[in-house]
């Protein structure tokens, strides 16, 4: 199967998966359940049984790229945590989103273009998953945005919105840390982030947010991305600070300019 690398815009690395995302988006806006089912069926089975060859390949890649910080067997060192039991989901999230291998230390490890092919990421994830029981990579059926967007919105506002903003525009935390914007983030990354709690994000395990809850949240995020805000231009959806700044600079500036013109004598 031909793979292509993830591009800077955050598009999926698998051509087939890109079709899934487009198809799922169309299905939600069109409201056709049948279309969504078809989209799920056309995708490759991501969660196929992990073969020993894949695990071995993953171990090789791990030794070359990860072991200097995480230890030769993923046991962790002073520089990085143990990976035993973090699960394949955590490894796929970190490596596929480009956060790992980390480019530089800092308040927060930043997202960047992944340096591995899809096959290599699958292999690394398989190896890390084999280290100990942990969250598995979600299936395409779990990721399809065909849940209940209303319920997803409620769950998102209760569990996620305080950091990620009510429509997933992201927000600031302390000392340079931040909750990233969720626009354009692929569904598998959102699901895996909830499951594994990367960096300072808390863990939302399946007892807290069930797979149905997670599907609904993904459906909600897909919906708000596909539908423009009814209230006017969003200005980045960042709320009163941005809106206030806009009004102070442009609206008040305009009023002041108009007042000066009104009071000036004609030449």
């Amino acid at each position, binding site marked *: 199967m031909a793979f292509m690398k993830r591009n800077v815009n955050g598009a999926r690395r698998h051509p087939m998966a890109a079709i899934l995302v487009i198809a799922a988006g169309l299905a939600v806006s069109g409201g056709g359940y049948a279309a969504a089912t078809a989209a799920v069926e056309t995708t490759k089975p991501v969660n196929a049984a992990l073969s020993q060859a894949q695990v071995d390949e993953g171990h090789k890649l791990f030794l070359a790229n990860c072991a200097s910080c995480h230890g030769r067997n993923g046991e962790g060192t002073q520089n990085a945590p143990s990976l035993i039991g973090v699960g394949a989901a955590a490894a796929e999230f970190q490596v596929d989103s480009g956060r790992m291998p980390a480019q530089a230390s800092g308040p927060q490890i930043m997202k960047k273009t992944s340096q591995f092919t899809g096959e290599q990421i699958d292999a690394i994830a398989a190896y890390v998953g084999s280290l100990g029981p942990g969250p598995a990579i979600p299936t395409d059926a779990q990721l399809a945005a065909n849940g209940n967007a209303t319920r997803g919105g*409620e*769950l998102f506002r*209760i*569990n996620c919105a*305080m*950091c990620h903003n009510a429509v997933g525009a992201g*927000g600031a*935390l*302390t000392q340079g*840390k931040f*909750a990233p914007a969720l626009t354009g983030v692929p569904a598998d990354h959102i699901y895996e982030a909830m499951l594994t*709690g990367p*960096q*300072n*994000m*808390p*863990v*939302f*395990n399946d*007892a*807290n947010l069930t797979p149905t809850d997670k599907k609904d949240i993904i459906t909600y995020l897909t919906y708000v991305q596909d*539908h*423009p*805000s*009814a*209230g*006017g*231009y969003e200005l980045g959806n960042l709320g009163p600070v941005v809106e206030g700044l806009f009004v102070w600079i442009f609206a008040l500036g305009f009023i002041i300019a108009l007042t000066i013109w*009104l009071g000036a*004598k*004609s*030449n």
Partner: protein
Amino acid sequence: MSDSKSIASGKGSQEPEHDYATGLAVIAADKVVDPGMEPHRVRMTDKSVKHEKAAARQVAALFLVSVLGSIFAIYAYFAFPLTDDLGTVRDNTLFMGLGIVLGLFGIGIGAVHWAKTLMPDAEVSEERHQTRGSEAVRARAIEIIKLADSESGFSRRKLIRRSLYGALALFPIPAIFFFGDLGPNPKDTLRHTMWKAGTRLTKDPTGLPIKASDVTLGSVFHVIPEGLAELPHHKLEEKAKAAVLLVRLDPADLKESPERKNWSYDGIVAYSKICTHVGCPVALYEQRTHHLLCPCHQSTFDVTDECKVIFGPASRPLPQLPIAVDSEGYLIAQSDFTEPVGPSFWER
């Protein structure tokens, strides 16, 4: 005596600070000299016919902008129709609004430009009147008051005057009772929440109970008391007081005072979600620093250290809910909060 005289005479000999001669208005003695009118500047539109015609065209153009704006508003109404999709409201209101704004703005700006460039530009100055009335007007006013008094007999008829005073004094008294009923006295409701010994901790919004084993390390649960959804009324008020954040930490990270040792369960701690500053929901939890942030004013609480304030305007730690586990493994409250939740109020 001679001292006081000299002071008095000394004062009298000084320049008066203010000049009251012209009336009650205080006029500083060292007032700035009136610079008078600026020299009149002849406008270009008065000097050249070319400029005058240009200005006239500009005014007409601005009125034309108004015409186009109004037509565009009507066009926009049809071009950006409202459909079942809520998103269509945006373009409909935006473009119709822009058209209407241009329609009104063109008229206004055109009128001002017209007045500034083409209407007569003679400059006029008007003196302010004195505040004090003339002697004749003042005398006449006193005359009218006296006449009214004698005709009504207000000074003469003591009975009427005093009964009127009584009526006026009593008139505002009912307001005390009226306003006294505004908003029921909250009594001690601010000191108590729904939590009782044995109340199960349940998930917001589903109301499903939480097993201690479900709360894995690094997890955050947004918690409401069991039975909140079944309340007949005041659901939101109760939720606003009882909302709790449930977090599991490595027990080795927890710094607990001796009297709170049994308030947590195997590293699971529950704290009120209501900020002690002005009551926003404190829910931004950083899993690795164990800091809990309030989104409104960035108060930061340290979950490892009984939610003490480490930054921001909050002045008190978040109240902790003592928790335990029942025979089925579900998390329950040991009691209500031991202190009032949320911001300060009177008598607290």
